[in-house]
């Protein structure tokens, strides 16, 4: 039976190989390039740690978006939602003197609550993802600014109405965003989510819904329920991303996490094809974030001005998307 030949054959070996490993090859090539150009500067253990630390927040928010994209959704509001989560956590410490063990779960639960609004717009009112999350982006931006009184929140800073604040940001919270901890958090999340998406029933259903909503529905999978599950799960990682941004800044800045939204989405798309997954996957997102992070780090070392870096990131994303879509359209 196994000898029987299918009517349509998959693509040739070499092009399939390139498609599978293009992102990883690019990652290794970029790494090798910088290592050879600046062995003493780039290839030091402290710089590797710097890179990993720099990509950890992008990766964690990216993991949230990986889940959203895997179920067939899209999210423009992740940066704003992360900012909101950061504003909440700092205010809990500074304004309300909460302990770390209360503040973090509370901030995550509230972020999940905010995601429920997004899900309501998408699942109940059938607004396309792009538009629903665009609306949410503006809402969250406004809400987090209003909440913080139009400014940043930090230790010792009086509230908007002039009330003095007495809460302290715990040292443990500061450590969360520092080098070993933040990297360990990222690695654990990547592994756990990878296992979740690949080996559990829920992960498989999430991919089934993302692959073909109608076919999944007619297989008896409750597609809207899985859509909401996926959203809430994504909110945990987006919220955590925002908390880590706050930890690194030791304050809640205006639009503090906004800059992470687009790199995170890019990382998911760059990582789509990794290892032939052909769909958003946790490991791929890590590869994508690493590629962007290494480029950024290396180019800065080569004295490329920081304001030009976005151009490079844009080119990398365009190339990744071109390789994904070009090969998938030439098939049919």
């Amino acid at each position, binding site marked *: 039976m196994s000898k029987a030949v*299918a009517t349509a054959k998959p693509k040739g070996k070499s092009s399939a190989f390139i498609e599978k490993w293009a992102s990883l090859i690019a990652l290794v090539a970029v790494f090798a390039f910088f290592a050879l150009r600046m062995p003493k500067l780039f290839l030091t253990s402290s710089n590797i740690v710097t890179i990993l630390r720099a990509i950890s927040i992008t990766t964690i928010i990216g993991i949230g978006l990986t889940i959203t994209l895997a179920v067939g959704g899209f999210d423009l509001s992740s940066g704003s939602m992360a900012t909101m989560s950061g504003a909440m956590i700092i205010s809990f410490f500074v304004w309300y003197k909460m302990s770390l063990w209360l503040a973090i779960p509370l901030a995550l639960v509230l972020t999940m609550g905010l995601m429920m609004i997004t899900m309501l717009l998408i699942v109940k009112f059938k607004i396309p993802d792009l538009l629903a999350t665009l609306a949410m982006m503006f809402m969250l931006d406004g809400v987090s600014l209003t909440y913080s009184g139009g400014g940043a929140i930090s230790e010792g800073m009086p509230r908007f109405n002039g009330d003095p604040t007495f809460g302290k940001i715990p040292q443990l919270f500061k450590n969360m965003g520092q080098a070993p901890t933040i990297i360990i958090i990222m690695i654990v999340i990547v592994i756990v989510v990878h296992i979740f998406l690949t080996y559990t029933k829920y992960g498989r259903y999430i991919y089934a819904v993302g692959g*073909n909503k109608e076919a999944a*529905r007619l*297989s008896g*999978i409750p597609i809207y329920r899985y859509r909401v599950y996926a959203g809430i799960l994504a909110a945990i990682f987006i919220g955590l991303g925002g908390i880590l941004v706050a930890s690194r800044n030791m304050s809640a800045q205006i639009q503090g996490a906004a800059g992470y939204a687009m790199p995170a989405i890019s990382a998911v798309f760059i990582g789509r094809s990794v290892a032939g997954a052909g769909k958003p996957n946790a490991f791929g997102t890590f590869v994508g974030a690493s590629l962007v992070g290494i480029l950024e780090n290396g180019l800065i070392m080569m004295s490329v001005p920081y304001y030009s870096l976005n151009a490079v990131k844009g080119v990398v994303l365009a190339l990744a998307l071109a390789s994904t879509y070009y090969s998938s359209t030439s098939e049919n």
Partner: protein
Amino acid sequence: MGMPYRRPHRDSPHRGEKNRMSQTVSSIEMKSISIEFPGVKALSDVDFSIKNGEIRAVVGANGAGKSTLMKVLAGANETYTGTILIDGKPCEIRDPRMAKRLGIELVYQEVDTALFPYLSVAENIMFNSLVSGMKGKSLVHWGSINKSAREILARLKMDIDVSRKVSSLTLAEKQMVLIARAVRERCKFLILDEPTAPLSLGEVEKLFGIVRDLAEREGVGVIFISHRLPELFQICTSLTVMKDGKVVANRAVNAELTTREIVNLMLGRSFEENFPKIPTTIGETMLEALGLSDEAGRVRNVSFSIKGGEIVGICGLVGAGKTELCKLLFGANKMRTGQIKLRGRSLKIRTPTSAVRQKIALVPEERRKEGVLVTEPVYFNLSAACLGKFCNRLSFVKKSLEIKNAKHLVTELGIKTPSVHQKVKYLSGGNQQKVAVGKWLTSDSDVYMLDEPTKGVDVGAKRDIFQLIQGLAKNGKAILYASSEINEILAITDRIYVMYNGNLVAELPTKTATEEEILFYATGGNK
């Protein structure tokens, strides 16, 4: 700085040319037209002709080649061989623009594909002059656009406000807009592909009035494709019957012609494959439907029952409501009224998820869109409907168990694939269908509904699928087999319900039913 606006001239050079070209055309003759698609001869040596003022019906069973022939005429099938004579002069119609220049307009059944939903009725009717008539002009003169559109609608006695958005129109009104656009293009030959299928009786009357006027007063030649034979007698003057890609008869429509005779002409196709029917023991009533109607009005007051071990056919032509009935029973479409009973117990099926929980399975018609996940491998698809079976308590999938089950099914169903890890999109249609069926074997359902399961499937796979269905019946499952292929229904079922226009119009035991009888009911013969 305003652009000088030039009023669109009634006889601008562009329009004058079109006028001249199409007005001269009074007859089209197609001679020995053939088309071959990979593996199938869609048309073989077809002769067809139409004259001004004639209303010619084209009838035939599904897959007879009606639409293919019409697409040739409309320039949408450029690979044909044979000759087309326009007023006796040979002419090549290799693209839609050529057809339009000859004044041939095709109104497809899916009216929405040809309309711009967010533009007004006037813009849709006048669209071509808005595009090609705008040379050297930048401003749209709304007054004259609306006026011309209103004139055309008045001429056709259509009552539609030209400023309305097309998205707010009913299906019937959209058809009228398309006809009006065709008339605006100085159309001399109008092809209507199953225009009445989605219409109500009143709307059909109105459409016929317009078509008759077009033919009699404007001398337009109309080609009318329909599955509803009775209505052809109301409107058509001549009739062409097609079967298996050939024209089998050309008749004048008069008092001598009967529905029975047309049905006989449409039939006669021998069923080459001989599928031996395995006798099964028929048990208790398994599934029962009482007075089902859906919200879209495509299923109307349908009642039927299936016993365990019984294969029940729902036969009807395309658009009769079979797919909608299946989806309604599966909870995928919304129910308005009615009751579904399983083993005598009343069920509430609101979503496919609850249907699956009640052990009802559906193999949908649109295989690639609804039946399988094409981007996922075979094993993934085969366990998609009941992944829980292969999970441990923590919901981790036990891959080895899943692969074992998949390999077993691949062997049992004869799915031709190099491995269970192959993505389903690389399988042939028949093998994809086997995967779509196999998915439900894993879940061990009680009721299997199959909607056009042999569509686009080769003969070998068809035989396999038939054997599979019979095997299920033998194991006491209740089978609902919905198809427009009458010979297949006759070959495999125990009992047949004929569906027409959303209603079940006849119930026939397969043993005594004939193809002729089924087609008679399926085309609204007893109405």
